[in-house]
């Protein structure tokens, strides 16, 4: 994998910001789009577009094929057993809400518990709180250790009373970069009779995901972080899960028949896909999946590891820096703070130099509280990130620190 070649696939990387070349270190928030994705969407709108699934005409049939090819690609990407196990949503948040409503309120019984971890994104906290308050399920939080890893002993203890119906946990923290030991988590959950969902919004960007090897009951992610368009997310669920879950949203395309008295539902996965789907986005996401598959996850994981190692080495040398999370298994997301400067000021000064990082609570307030801070700055890497960009970050941070000292 040659980063220079890869960078040529991303037109935006040639932009300048305030007169400086763009150094985009905010891929964990949303990744940039390769030309293949841009072209696929443009091409669909220019040459082959209509609504899908119901049209008997040429444009509709071709568009349906192009859109449904994304389901095959997503199933292959995750090694799902069948394409029917892939449900499209609007984003990861939409997928998590679907499960929280349809499984959390529709299958779990009041009194059963859901376990999340102490390093979840709000999107894997709030839907469960809402299910707790509306449906009477219990919400349990598995703590993290000081190094930013899941506390496996405490996690197992939470499972022991057998009340836990579902473990819903991140596969990679968007703040600490920690990968959670998904296969072990799933095995433990299953041992105690719980199902397991992984929020793979961050993880799937860097590593090959095999839902069958993990034995995940649910696995979700979001198109825009995997170099695809906004407006589309992916929920994998074992067919037996989908079969037992009631539908969530009602409307066109998710029904088998409708009368005023009673409607019946389409087969899975369509039962969970109401209304005109994100057609162009599916076409774009298919191109994104093809793009990363062509690079290969082995190469991408190695690139991420090399960048992360380099960044940890360079950043840890900066005076007065605090790096959050020291997990054994960690990836290309690094949160930090300088002792003399607020992270917003840091982010602004980096931005003045064309370096885009994120600052704030990263939609993870409870984790911020655990870390004892209000906010952090965060640099995150994509397939197009270079070692030189990390050097630019480290050099500029050093000067920012001096400025505020």
């Amino acid at each position, binding site marked *: 994998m040659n980063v220079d070649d890869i960078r040529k696939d991303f037109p935006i990387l040639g932009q300048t910001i305030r007169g400086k070349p763009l150094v985009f270190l905010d891929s964990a928030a949303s990744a940039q789009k390769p030309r293949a994705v841009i072209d696929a969407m443009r091409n669909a709108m220019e040459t082959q577009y209509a609504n899908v699934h119901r049209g008997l005409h040429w444009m509709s049939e071709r568009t349906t094929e192009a859109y449904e090819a994304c389901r095959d690609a997503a199933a292959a990407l995750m090694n799902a057993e069948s394409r029917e196990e892939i449900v499209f949503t609007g984003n990861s948040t939409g997928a998590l809400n679907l499960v929280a409503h349809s499984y959390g309120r529709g299958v779990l019984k009041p009194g059963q518990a859901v376990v999340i971890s102490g390093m979840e994104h709000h999107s894997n906290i709030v839907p469960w709180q809402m299910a707790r308050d509306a449906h009477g399920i219990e919400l349990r939080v598995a703590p993290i250790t000081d190094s930013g890893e899941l506390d496996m002993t405490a996690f197992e203890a939470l499972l022991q009373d057998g009340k836990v119906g579902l473990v819903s946990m991140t596969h990679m923290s968007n703040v600490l970069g920690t990968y959670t030991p998904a296969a072990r988590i799933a095995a433990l959950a299953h041992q105690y009779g719980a199902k397991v969902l992984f929020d793979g919004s961050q993880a799937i960007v860097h590593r090959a995901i095999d839902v069958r090897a993990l034995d995940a009951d649910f696995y979700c992610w979001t198109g825009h972080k995997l170099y695809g368009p906004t407006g589309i997310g992916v929920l994998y669920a074992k067919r037996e899960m989908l079969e037992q879950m009631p539908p969530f949203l009602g409307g066109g395309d998710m029904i088998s028949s409708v009368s005023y008295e009673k409607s019946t539902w389409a087969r899975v996965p369509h039962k969970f896909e109401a209304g005109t789907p994100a057609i162009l986005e599916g076409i774009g996401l298919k191109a994104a999946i093809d793009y990363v598959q062509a690079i290969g996850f082995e190469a991408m994981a190695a690139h991420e590891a090399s960048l992360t190692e380099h960044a940890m080495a360079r950043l840890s040398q900066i005076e007065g820096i605090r790096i959050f999370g020291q997990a054994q298994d960690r990836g290309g997301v690094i949160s930090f703070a300088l002792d003399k400067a607020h*992270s917003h*000021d840091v982010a602004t000064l980096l931005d003045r130099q064309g370096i885009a990082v994120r600052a704030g609570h990263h939609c993870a307030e409870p984790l911020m509280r655990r870390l004892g801070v209000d906010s952090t700055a965060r640099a995150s890497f994509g397939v197009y990130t270079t070692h030189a960009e990390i050097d630019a970050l480290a050099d500029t941070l050093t000067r920012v620190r001096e400025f505020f000292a």
Partner: protein
Amino acid sequence: MSFADEVRELYQEVILDRGRKPRHGQRLAAFDATAKGDNPMCGDRVQVWVKFDSGDTISETGFEARGCAISIASADLMADAIQGRGKADTKALFDSFVAMVRTGVCPEHDTVLEQLAPLSGVHEYPSRVKCATLPWHALNAALEGTREASSE
């Protein structure tokens, strides 16, 4: 431009200085009005206390803030600028200040706004505009007798 020059576009000496060592950065023992300001998007928080002279002239302002250099410096410069002003006058200043930090334009010959002009550089950084205006929103809430403001 050098790094230092680029930094100074926004972080002028007075902002760094006030951000580090604000002169009004404490709650008032005796006060007539107070309110909190909260920017949930970035976690900045500020509370402002105001004391009036006879009538509605502001005699003293104090604040406690958790946030970036911009928001703290803005609170501190605000406390200077509103000293001795009536309510209506202060509200008018609030409006002019917001206009200035949004546009970057400081009206000529306005000596009061000129004191606040070092903050006008934020107009290049729209999300930081909220950092600069947060203490003013809190002040405004205090003057209006509401207890909370948000610059979300």
